[in-house]
């Protein structure tokens, strides 16, 4: 009987402990997104900056989205150590500047 009580208590405790995580995962995707981004800033950087190959083919909305992603990435890169920050902020700025430049030229057409 005691064993059953202990098992039930362990089960309840386990469910209680995992609930907040599942709530965050399903109910608050933004929080999960930022946690994901902090761990994978480089993946996001590579995806965003790879678009500099064909910026003239992107629509103004796509360019605006990329500029916004650059701004989000900047906050993550700002937290890196000095050298990494220096290298990647410059690279990121070049990507963002190119997107802004293409967007401006498309809007002024």
């Amino acid at each position, binding site marked *: 009987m005691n064993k059953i009580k202990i098992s039930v208590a362990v089960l309840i405790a386990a469910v209680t402990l995992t609930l907040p995580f599942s709530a965050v995962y399903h109910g608050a995707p933004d929080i999960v997104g930022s946690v994901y981004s902090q761990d994978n800033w480089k993946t996001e950087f590579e995806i965003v900056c*790879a678009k500099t190959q064909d910026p003239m083919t992107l629509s103004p909305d796509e360019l605006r989205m990329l500029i916004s992603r650059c701004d989000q990435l900047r906050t993550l890169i700002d937290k890196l150590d000095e050298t990494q920050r220096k290298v990647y902020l*410059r690279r990121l700025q070049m990507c963002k500047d*190119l997107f802004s430049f293409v967007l401006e*030229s498309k809007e002024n057409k």
Partner: protein
Amino acid sequence: MPYLQAISLILAVFAFPCVSVAWNNASPPKYGRVIIKKHSERAGLAPVIFDHWVHRSRFTCRLCHVDIGFAMEANGTNITASMNRQGYYCGSCHDGKRSFDGKITFQACSGGASKEASVRCDRCHSLGKNVVREYEFADFANKMPKAYTGNGINWEAAEEQGLIKLVDFLDGISTQRASLKMQKDFSLEVKASWVGEVKFSHKKHAIWNGCEVCHPEIFPSVQKGRTKFNMFQISDGQFCGVCHEKVAFSLKACEGCHISPVGIGR
């Protein structure tokens, strides 16, 4: 009107040499040479001699100036030994692990007090020293198509003929990119009557530089006729002059850009 053209030509002949003090009169082996000295002397080392030709014979401009992050002006990057040791800037390639052309690169700024370490330092920190170079300019240049300015090498022809195969991707550093979408070539309107029009080839430039080396930092507009510049600004190191007259072919090679015949009354 012929008077105006004649006056323009006379002014150009006499005025242009006045700005030609900015011309790069370096000998072919030294054309494109950069002396990096921001931290060396304080660390008790000779300044670094960086010869562009050694690197541009193997890598695209973009690999170093975008992916690795070197600034486009001399001493603009503020490189330190610590940064190199961490695998950035020179240390991106010179890490003692990567190999190019079957040779493992030496490790930049790896320190040590041994004679071997000192020889390694001298490979870069060599200003004022009599260092035996691993790569000799004459040996390399003799195999390349000739040009009469700059390094004396026609780099474009060298690539077309397969004599150089430029690396554009560095594992762990470069981003995975789709193939480059080329923009159209276009003509630039020339105000002077005594020079031919400029045919600008996007393909020639983008293949080595990508888009972001030039736009928007060097050329802040893609709209035809919006960015106006002249030869005085170019010879002062702006616009085309950021690369031409420093590393790319010299401004003395007028026909490199002004493709149609030059002369009064064309």
